[in-house]
């Protein structure tokens, strides 16, 4: 990872652990975890469970300045509560009637790049990552001379909502920035789901995904670059999904020392 190794005389493996956020070399008590490991897992699970249940307050969480700067507004899927959202993926994939009318009246049709923010399963991810990502995507679109759609937010949002938005606004490339299911490591992980001219009937096979946008994973600048590059690839290929593959990809450091041991 990027943080420099900190030496710790009492724990000679401390430096190694900085290479990955995984819980490696934690020792054992018989075949079981050390007590400290056991309780830290419980603690992180409790935090993740709470994060799932949090409801988003767009103005309060993202701040009025951000909403004003981007002229943002929020609509809802057909789910009416967090509990219903969790159990009814079919409702989370559809915009409600008011949302359809609102985006049709407030957003331009046929944008080259349309960004939508969805709460998904983590409000914390949206709050942390989306306000940093949006300006970079906007700047990248301007640089390329793309018409940038007016961004908006969707509450109780599932990935399949791409199709409804595609039908209503007919963007060339649609990007949904959506909070990922919180894990034990972080509740701040964001995904970008992308589709070329999405419409009713599109499945995951016609979508591309950049996941793990958070401090331990893909950083904001890289995420923005990859989203814009994928958008270019989609425009060139005039399609999205499994037939469109990202080029490059960062593997931060090689592992030569480990492998040259013997």
């Amino acid at each position, binding site marked *: 990872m990027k943080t420099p190794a900190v030496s710790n005389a009492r724990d000679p493996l401390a430096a190694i652990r900085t290479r990955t956020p995984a819980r490696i070399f934690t020792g054992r008590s018989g075949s079981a975890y050390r007590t400290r490991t056991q309780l830290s897992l419980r603690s992180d699970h409790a935090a993740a469970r709470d994060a799932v249940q949090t409801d988003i307050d767009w103005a309060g969480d993202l701040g009025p300045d951000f909403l004003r700067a981007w002229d943002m507004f929020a609509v809802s899927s057909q789910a009416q509560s967090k509990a219903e959202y969790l159990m009814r993926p079919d409702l989370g994939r559809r915009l409600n009637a008011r949302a359809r009318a609102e985006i049709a009246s407030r957003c331009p049709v046929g944008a080259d790049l349309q960004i939508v923010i969805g709460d998904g399963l983590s409000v914390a991810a949206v709050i942390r990552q989306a306000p940093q990502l949006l300006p970079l995507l906007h700047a990248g679109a301007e640089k390329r001379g793309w018409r940038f759609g007016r961004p908006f937010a969707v509450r109780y949002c599932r990935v399949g909502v791409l199709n409804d938005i595609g039908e209503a606004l007919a963007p060339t490339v649609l990007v949904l920035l959506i909070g990922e299911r919180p894990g034990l490591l972080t509740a701040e992980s964001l995904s970008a789901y992308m589709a070329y001219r999405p419409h009713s009937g599109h499945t995951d096979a016609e979508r591309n995904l950049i996941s793990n946008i958070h401090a331990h994973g893909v950083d904001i600048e890289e995420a923005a670059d990859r989203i814009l590059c994928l958008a270019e690839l989609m425009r060139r290929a005039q399609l999205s999904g*499994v037939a469109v593959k990202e080029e490059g990809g960062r593997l931060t450091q*090689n592992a030569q020392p480990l492998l040259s*041991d013997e």
Partner: protein
Amino acid sequence: MSYSITVRSERFSFADLREVFAKANEDKSGDRLAGIAAGSEQERVAAKLVLADIPLADIVANPLIDPTQDEVSRLILATHDQAAFRPLAHLTVGELREYVLDEGQDSARLGALHWAIIPEVAAAVTKLMSNKDLVMAASKIRNITRCRNTMGQPGVLGIRVQPNHPADDLGGILLSAVDGLLFGCGDAVIGVNPATESVETVSRILHGLQRLIAAYDIPTQSCCLAHISTQLDSLERGAPVDLLFQSLAGTEAANASFGINLDMLGEGRERVLEHHRNREVAWVGDAVMYFETGQGSALSANAHHDVDQLTLEARTYGVARAFAPFLVNTVVGFIGPEYLYDERQIVRAGLEDHFMGKLLGLPMGCDVCYTNHAQADQNSADNLLLLLTAAGCNYFMGVPCADDVMLSYQSTSFHDALSARQLFGLRPAPEFLAWLEQMDIVRNGELMAADSPARQRLEGAVKRIA
């Protein structure tokens, strides 16, 4: 054909086989979501009673999904061994349950049934079995497979090391893998889910894993669990592919949502077999495919044809077995509470999937897992892990402290593997165990403490990387 029955003076009717199948299931949130679940416990039992009396021949003769509209249905019919089925055809589903559980039916005799039983029949009998039935029946069936080592023999419990990293950092991936090796894990496969689906990333992960295996001469397989087309593109550009991975579902439309079809699987398998022939590796067998599955995926893609998720999972195994896989595992708690609501449903589904897979001839493993929006916790995973070990599950996942830092869910850990092996007196795959002993990671069947020279050499290598 419609069915009806009177239970305690109440009349229950079912329009067709598909409705009987769906309503005979144990309670699952996914069947409710699909609108096909039993409306009451009484109706559920009525469906089970009806199902118990249906002859297997009727199920074979009445496909739940029309073969003219679905290539999975056509595959199931084409691969059915009708000669082997003939002696069973007159049995009812209830009689098949007793037949499978009978002490006289050992591994060899049940093994002879694999291709006589179609997935829908396996699903039907599963609906009549208790959790303990599923453990007992599955424990009698050993399905053995070979690639770079041998999995599935009696007394063997394998573990996939799953060293995922949220930024695909190869050093981080290999560190997690070494942690697993030092716990005696990794015989099933060292298998990485990439965070980025690009040929470059997948190639570098495959090369990195292969260098680790070559450096220490480890008798195991590597795999990068990207889309099949990305792995094959990587292979074309020179990356070593031991196992070709793909997620599968039980209908043509659901597989299409994964971007695959049966021809792609067959062509990919042929390509990897040819690639194996051209590599200087001491292969012990030619099983080259690795599949993951899970109840609910077809409904999630709106491709379920109003068939219940248990039956669709069985059909997925009908796809898997046509390609002679080395590994197959259900990822049983990954899909979320919309399909498997809580621990009770996840445990049930895990036992169902494992039994059905074994009955259909698959080398069945299980990713015992849960997400943080399901009503489950690590105690739930402990419970299912122990039940499936008793059931003779081929392998589990080994994730550092069960916390997958890339996929953001909890599975089972290297520690869990050690516990399950100790508790049930099980060993790693034989070739892998010999390597562990040669490295002095295991001595006299015991995992060594940190003072063995070979262990310190591995850890020393790990320290230099950081």
